[in-house]
């Protein structure tokens, strides 16, 4: 669970922009991130901060109109700008995805077994029969009861949580090095959510898969992640080990996110949740300034004049891009409750 070994996935200075009718929209700006073997990294941020775009760009799944620069290396092999045929060999076999809506993400007219088997047929050259047999094993692995019957069922015959387990079974079918889970629990209720997170943890422990989990839910991050990356308006604004981040958020945005989340022991009346005013801006280009400045209580001239670099204090692996980082924990309550 440490980052000591060489990273499986190295993202360096990844930027993504989309041409639209009203001009270019910059979705991701200079994102760098490492994922070590067997590590679970959480990526958190509001809607529209570039989390999903980052996730999709890893295996080149963005639409053709997207302009992607920078570098994504899987075990040293460059994926940005790689040929489509090379990317197809990576997708589903080395980098697998789980998406938010298990209902719509599964094909309604194909059996569960067929959809899982498909991955094995294309990547492992398995026969249809062998793939089906393996699908049963995989369904058992992700905790689906009576898998031998379920394998011939259709997605609509399963509950939301079961469908998401099918998605996971499909994702881990070829034993991928990296699992990208884009809001895997958002559409599920809390008890089901806990079950899904447990499945992901188990798979990491058993198969050594690295997981990049994307969410806007700090509770999920706290539950499962080893390290956290906080994104804001397309940039990484803070990166830290999970306990460190919750105890001592350094970026003003992270602190704001934490004080906007309910915690046990905090009650309305004595300790109200504080929201961050305003919305994530949609940027045509990335300015040389802190993009959070307009919503930040501590912003001054410096924040609007230059983009703060992502740096740590005293060489720790806790880094933040803020000219005026929080020194003491401003939300002591969260630190205490962790």
């Amino acid at each position, binding site marked *: 669970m440490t980052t000591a070994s060489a990273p499986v996935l190295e993202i360096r200075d990844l930027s993504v922009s989309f041409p639209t009718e009203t001009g270019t929209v910059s979705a991701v700006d200079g994102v760098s991130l490492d994922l070590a073997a067997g590590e679970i990294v959480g990526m958190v941020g509001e809607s529209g901060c570039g989390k999903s775009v980052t996730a999709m760009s890893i295996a080149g799944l963005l639409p053709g109109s997207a302009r992607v620069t920078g570098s994504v290396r899987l075990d040293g092999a460059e994926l940005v700008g790689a040929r489509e045929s090379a990317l197809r060999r990576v*997708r589903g076999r080395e980098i697998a995805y789980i998406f938010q809506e298990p209902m719509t*993400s599964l094909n309604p*007219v194909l059996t569960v077994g067929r959809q899982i088997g498909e991955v094995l047929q294309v990547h492992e050259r398995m026969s249809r029969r062998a793939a089906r047999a393996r699908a049963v094993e995989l369904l058992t692995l992700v905790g689906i009861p009576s898998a031998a019957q379920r394998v011939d069922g259709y997605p609509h015959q399963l509950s939301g949580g079961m469908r998401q387990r099918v998605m996971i079974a499909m994702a881990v079918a070829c034993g991928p090095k990296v699992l990208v889970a884009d809001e895997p629990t958002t559409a599920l209720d809390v008890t089901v959510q806990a079950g899904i997170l447990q499945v992901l943890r188990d798979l990491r422990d058993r198969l050594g898969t690295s997981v990049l989990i994307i969410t806007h839910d700090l509770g999920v991050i706290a539950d499962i992640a080893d390290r956290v990356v906080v994104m804001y308006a397309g940039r990484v604004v803070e990166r830290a080990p999970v306990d460190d981040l919750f105890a001592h958020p350094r970026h003003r945005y992270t602190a704001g996110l934490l004080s906007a989340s309910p915690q046990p022991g905090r009650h309305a009346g004595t300790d109200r949740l504080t929201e961050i005013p305003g919305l994530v801006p949609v940027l045509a280009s990335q300015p040389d300034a802190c993009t959070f400045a307009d919503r930040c209580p501590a912003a001054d001239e410096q924040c609007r004049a230059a983009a703060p670099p992502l740096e740590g204090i005293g060489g720790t692996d806790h880094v933040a891009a803020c000219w005026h980082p929080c020194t003491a924990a401003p939300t002591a309550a969260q630190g205490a409750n962790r």
Partner: protein
Amino acid sequence: MARYLLTRAWQSALTLLLSTIVVFVGVRALPGDPALALAGEDRSPEALEAIRRHYGLDQPLPVQFAQYVERMAQGDFGVSIRTGTPVSSMLTTALPVTVELSVLAILIAAALGVGAGVLAAVRRGRPAEWLANGLALIGLSVPHFWLGLLAILYLSVATGLFPASGFVPILEDPVDNLHHIVLPAVILGTGLAAIIMRQTRSAMLDSLSSDYVRTAKAKGLRPRAVITRHALRNSLIVVVTVVGLQLGGLISGAVVTEQIFGLPGFGKMTIDAVFQRDYPVIQAVVLLTAAAYIVINFFVDLLYSVIDPRIRVTGDPA
């Protein structure tokens, strides 16, 4: 599944019975006494009475209806007023022509339409889509009687590649039969292809932007597998619906094409019957058209449940 089938079969039978009643009542509600029309010059009460007795018109309506259904079940649709030939024998010559023309036309239309529709959706915003859209617009806006006339002019009269009119039964000479039917089938099919193309394209665009297609791509499937197995399979409901409606329409509606190419089909028979007020023939035509729609609808519903497993569940609560 079996239960779904039974339900649908039962519904179809009921619909057929209802259409029979409508046709029966409709014909009898027409003004004028059929006995008077049949009597001709001799309009003595005795003659009229004899005619009524002969055709069963003196019986109460429910009895007449029962007899009517019974006769139809035996394939007896009565006798044409104008020609005196049994309607059933007219049908046995006319129906095969129309069925062959319709099936051939719909096959051509489906092949062209689905192919072009998928291509237009996959190559969105590129020349292939513009070409497919342009051709579809032409297919929709050019009346096919005109297209038929052009085809006769250039491919039959000028070059002699195809016969301009006429029909040879398939059992008599299959090659000659195809030679006669291919041109009208292509002309008929191209217009229908345009509609199928449009519907396929829009259904495919929906499917291609869906989450399950994103999943399929993320699995590393080849584009062909993504397009056919995932996107097209989910678009087939739309395609089957359109094709089914068109086929039903063709059985009764290939009138213009049959007229132009001089094919002795169902459409031509209908037109002649309408102009000559040949009620027994009209009655049979209306009923058969209704039956064709009902049967096709039944098969379309059957196909729905094959394509989409969720539909099986709606009809089968078990």
